[in-house]
């Protein structure tokens, strides 16, 4: 399991691995928003939590269609399926590696980009916490979507359509927590909801993804 995690991180960091793609996308979206909205600091400040959450979600989605497809195409997935590792574990580890290379940089970059959007000072802490709690769920749900579409050529579109509705609860509560904090309100309840959704997803999704993968490998 650890070997697989280390291998996925190494592959992502080496040339052509796609590390930084999500981060660059996030950066571009957030930098362009003030230009398209216009010079309205209070409007920007109000929409900042939502824009940051939406940008992070879409950036997360960007690299998901290669999560399992690469291993499927070069045969590594077949070989992993015949190895002592359970497929559930394989999917969970790959989702974890995806989070470290995509989700974690987004969490760390979000406060910097918050400045560009004139985010209220009270909002930064909760924004980071809500993203840190929510993005693991995005990676795990995405891994499930990738497992569903693994045998399909150009399955990225189908995967996005399948995964986006599942992302909605995390987005609602994550953005709500950041918005409340930015307005100086108590953000505990939505934060707990995000944490609960993530805990449930991390507990159940690996089994769903493993089962789906087993069917798709036949």
């Amino acid at each position: 399991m650890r070997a697989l995690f280390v291998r996925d991180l190494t592959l992502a960091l080496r040339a052509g691995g796609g590390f930084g793609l999500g981060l660059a996308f996030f950066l571009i979206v957030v930098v362009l928003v003030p230009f398209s909205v216009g010079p309205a600091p209070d409007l920007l400040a109000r929409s900042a939590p939502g824009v940051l959450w939406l940008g992070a979600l879409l950036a997360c989605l960007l690299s998901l269609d290669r999560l399992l497809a690469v291993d499927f195409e070069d045969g590594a997935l077949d070989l992993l399926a015949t190895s002592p590792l359970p497929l559930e574990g394989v999917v969970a580890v790959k989702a974890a590696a995806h989070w470290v290379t995509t989700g974690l940089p987004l969490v760390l970059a979000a406060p910097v980009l918050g400045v560009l959007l004139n985010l209220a000072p009270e909002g930064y802490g909760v924004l980071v916490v809500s993203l840190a709690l929510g993005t693991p769920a995005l990676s795990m749900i995405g891994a499930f979507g990738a497992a569903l579409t693994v045998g399909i050529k150009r399955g990225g579109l189908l995967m996005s359509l399948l995964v986006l509705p599942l992302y909605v609860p995390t987005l609602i509560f994550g953005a709500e927590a950041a918005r409340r904090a930015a307005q100086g309100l108590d953000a505990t309840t939505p934060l707990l909801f995000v944490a609960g959704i993530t805990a449930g997803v991390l507990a159940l999704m690996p089994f769903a993804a493993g089962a789906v993968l087993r069917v798709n490998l036949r």
Partner: protein
Amino acid sequence: MELTVTDLAVGRGGVPVLAGVSFALGAGQARVLRGPNGSGKTTLLRTVAGLQPPMAGVLKGAEDRVAYAAHTDGLKAALSVAENLRFWGAVFGQRDIDPALQAFDLVALADRRAASLSAGQKRRLGLARMVVTRRPVWVLDEPTVSLDAASVQLFADAVRAHLNAGGSALIATHINLGLDAEVLDVTPFRAAADTMAHADEAFL
């Protein structure tokens, strides 16, 4: 413990391809699968490897004992030869990759990136993975594709060493490896699958 296949029926996408396949493969034994393209050799091998369930029949002694190699080698172009092997070793709980590198003449290439290998060298690396896994049953699907005569010899030697160490091998190949192996022609079982499908239609 030997691998036994009894009255096995295998299919692709719900369509039966082979039926009534029976054989046993004990320690130190090898079996060569023969049959024209599309006759179901790959499907049979994937079933034995546990990648798909059999449609009927019993498969014993394959669980967690099979190392499988197909047309694709599962190599990562961005990793070096040694890193690729070490990864598969770690997955199968093994650390020692040197015997595998030596068996397939890859020692000099150990630090080269897999991306810069030729097709034959990649294939050799893919087969070296079988040695690294230390699994007793090798299931090989056309292992000699893109290998030259010398590499085929290396491969045959590796299989022989594996058999002498008490392993067994099930190989689908069209060339003569010079192994002391029984040949299993899948063509007659294919006919059985056809009649099975017709019987179903008649029944409906």
